C-alpha cells in the first residue's frame, strides 16, 4: 500500500455543465412528463385546451397546496416528516378569520394568521428537536390537537370574514394572462431554491439529512436547525391558508382540507425529494406541483371520477419512485464500476 500513497487520487469534483446528464436528470424527466400530460390534454380536448382561461384555471387549481410543498421539501430534507401541516393550515386560517371578526384591521389579522402557523410549527419543532420524539408520531398527534382546537372553537360554524385579496390571489390573472398564484408560488420557489441550494442554512440541511451525528460533530446546532425548519414549515402552512381560503371562496370550517398533507408529501416525493433525507432539489417539487394539477384536471376532463383519479395518482406516485430508484441503483453500479477500474489501474 505504501507505493500508492504518492499516487494522489483526483478528488476535485467535476462540476462542469454536461448537457447529457442534464437532459437525463430527474427534474428534466418531470418536465417531459409535464409535456406529455399537456400533449395528451391537447389531443383529447383541443377545443378546450386552446380556449383562453383553461390553462390558467388548471394552474390555479393546483396552487392551493403549493406553499405546503415548499415547506415540506425542507422537512423531508432533514429526514423528518410533517403530517400536521393541513391542520396547521386550518388553524392559521382560523386565527386570521377570528381576528377579522374581532374587528382587527386586515394586515395585522393576516400577520396573526401567519404567526399562528409559526407557533404550531414551533411546538412541533420543540417536541421533535428538543424532546427527541420521532417526527411522524409528534405530527400525527399534533394534527389531532390543532384540528381539535379548531373544532372546539368553531364547532359546526364556519368563518366567512376574510380579507378580500385572498380570493384575488387564488382566482385572478395578472394582466388577464398570468395566474397571480403561480407568480407568488414561483417567487417563493425562487427564494427556496436560494435557501436550500445556495445559502449556508440550506447546505446544513443536506448534511443533517445525510447524517445528523456527523452534522453535530462538524459544528452544526442540529436541534436549533430542526426547530427553525419546523417553524418555516408552520409559516408556509400559514401562507398556504391564504391560498386555500381564497380557493374556497373566503370561508373556512373545521372539517376542511383533510388529506392535503398527503398530497403535499406525494408531490415532494414525485419531485425527487427522498423521505430518508438529504437528497432532492426544489425545482423538482415545483414542476411536480404543476404535473399534479394538470394530471388531476386532465383526468377530470375525461369524466373520470375523483376516487378513480386517486388510483391514478397512487400508480403515478409508485411508478415515479420505481423509476428514480432504478436510476439511483444504476448510478451506484456505474460509480462502483468506475471505482473498481480506478483500483485496478492503481494496482497496475
Amino acid at each position, binding site marked *: 500500500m505504501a507505493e500508492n500513497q504518492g499516487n494522489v487520487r483526483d478528488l476535485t469534483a467535476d462540476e462542469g455543465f454536461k448537457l447529457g446528464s442534464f437532459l437525463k436528470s430527474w427534474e428534466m424527466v418531470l418536465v417531459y412528463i409535464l409535456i406529455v400530460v399537456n400533449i395528451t390534454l391537447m389531443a383529447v380536448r383541443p377545443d378546450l385546451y386552446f380556449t383562453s382561461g383553461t390553462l390558467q384555471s388548471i394552474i390555479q387549481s393546483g396552487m392551493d397546496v403549493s406553499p405546503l410543498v415548499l415547506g415540506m421539501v425542507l422537512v423531508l430534507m432533514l429526514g423528518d416528516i410533517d403530517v400536521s401541516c393541513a391542520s396547521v393550515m386550518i388553524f392559521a386560517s382560523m386565527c386570521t378569520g377570528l381576528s377579522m371578526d374581532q374587528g382587527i384591521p386586515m394586515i395585522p389579522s393576516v400577520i396573526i394568521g401567519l404567526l399562528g402557523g409559526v407557533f404550531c410549527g414551533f411546538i412541533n419543532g420543540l417536541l421533535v428537536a428538543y424532546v427527541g420524539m420521532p417526527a*411522524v408520531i409528534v405530527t400525527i398527534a399534533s394534527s389531532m390537537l390543532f384540528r381539535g382546537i379548531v373544532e372546539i372553537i368553531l364547532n359546526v360554524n364556519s368563518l366567512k370574514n376574510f380579507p378580500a385579496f385572498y380570493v384575488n390571489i387564488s382566482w385572478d390573472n395578472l394582466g388577464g394572462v398570468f395566474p397571480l398564484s403561480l407568480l407568488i408560488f414561483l417567487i417563493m420557489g425562487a427564494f427556496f431554491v436560494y435557501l436550500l441550494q445556495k445559502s449556508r442554512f440550506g447546505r446544513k440541511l443536506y448534511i443533517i439529512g445525510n447524517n445528523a451525528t456527523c452534522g453535530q460533530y462538524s459544528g452544526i446546532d442540529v436541534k436549533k436547525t430542526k426547530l427553525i425548519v419546523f417553524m418555516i414549515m408552520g409559516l408556509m402552512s400559514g401562507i398556504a391558508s391564504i391560498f386555500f381560503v381564497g380557493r374556497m371562496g373566503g370561508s373556512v370550517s373545521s372539517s376542511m382540507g383533510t388529506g392535503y398533507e398527503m398530497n403535499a408529501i406525494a408531490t415532494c416525493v414525485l419531485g425527487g425529494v427522498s423521505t430518508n433525507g438529504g437528497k432532492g432539489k426544489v425545482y423538482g417539487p415545483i414542476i411536480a406541483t404543476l404535473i399534479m394539477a394538470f394530471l388531476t384536471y386532465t383526468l377530470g376532463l375525461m369524466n373520470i371520477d375523483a376516487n378513480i383519479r386517486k388510483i391514478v395518482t397512487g400508480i403515478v406516485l*409508485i411508478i415515479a419512485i420505481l423509476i428514480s430508484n432504478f436510476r439511483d441503483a444504476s448510478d451506484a453500479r456505474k460509480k462502483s464500476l468506475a471505482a473498481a477500474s480506478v483500483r485496478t489501474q492503481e494496482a497496475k
Partner: protein
Amino acid sequence: MKNEKSFVSRLTGSRNFGLVVVLIIIIIIAAIITPSIFKPNTFIGMIQNNAVYGLLAVAEMLVIITGGIDISIGAILAFVGVVTTRYMSENMDVPSFVWVLVALAVGLLCGMVNGLLVGYLHIVPMIATLGTMYIYRGMAFLVSQGKWWMPHQITESYQNWAVKKIAGLPGIIWILILMFIIFGFFLAYTTYGRRIYAIGTSRESSAVAGIKDSVVIFRSMALCGMLAGLAGMLYTANYATCVYTIGSSYEMTAIAICVLGGVSITGGRGRMDGVVIAFILMSFITQFISLLPGLSVWSNAIQGAIIIGAVGLNFFTIHQAEKRALKERSELI
C-alpha cells in the same frame, strides 16, 4: 456494583411505566367524573367499539418493528369491508365463514402488494403505502360504486362474527384477544418473530447473520394486510353498515397506539403487553370523552394532547433508563 436493583427503580425503569401512570390517572379522573364507565356492560361496549383499532394496532406493530410503516391499512380496511359486504349482500345463502376467508385472502393480497413494493422493489415504506393507500381507497369506491349498505342488507350470521356473545364477550373481542395472544407469542417466541426484531434493529447485521430482509419484510407486510382485512370484515359486521369511506385515518390511531405502547418507530423494539395497555388506554380516553356531555368536539384535541403527553413521558423514562445504564456501565469499568 449492586446486582439487585431496588423494586422502585426497576418499576420506574420499565418501558411501560409512563403509560401505566397515565392510564391510572385517566381511570381516577374517569371514576370521579363518570362512575358509570365501570359498569361491566359499559366496559365491554367500550372494548367492542374500539376493537378494530386494536386489530389494526397489531397489524401496524408487525410492520413498525421491521422499521417500516404502513399507512394503507385504513384503506385496506375499507376495501375489504366493501368487498365482503357487497358480495355477501348479493349472495346471502353462502355460509358466513366464507366471507371471513375472503376478507383474510383479499387483505393478504393487498398486504402482499405492499410487501412487494417495500421488500423487493425497495421503495421507502411511507411512500409505497401512501401510493397504495390512494389505490385501495379508489378500488373501494370502484367496488362499492358509492353505495351504502344498511343493517337489513347484512345477514345475521355475518354480523354474529362481531356481535354474538360467547361466554359474556362479543365475538369481536374474542377474536381480538386471540390475535393479541397469537401475535404476542409469534413475535416473542418464534424464530420468525425474532427475525422481525433483528431486521428492525439493524438490517446490515441481520443480513450478515443470514436473514433475508426482503422475505421478512414481505411477509410481515402481508400479515399486516391480512389483519387489516380481518378488521375490515369485522368492522362491517360490528356496525352492520358499510360505505367506501370507512376507516379513513384509522392508520394514524393504530400508529399512535403502537407508539404509545412502546413500539419504537425506528424499529426493533416493542412488546405486545405494551400495545395491549396502550389499546386499553386509548379506548378509555375515547369512551370517557364520549360519556361527558357536550365534550364530543373536544375528542380530537384531548386525544392529541394525551398522545403527546404519554409518548413524551415514555421517551423521558427511556432516556433516563439509558442514562442510568450508561452510568452503571462506566462504574463497572
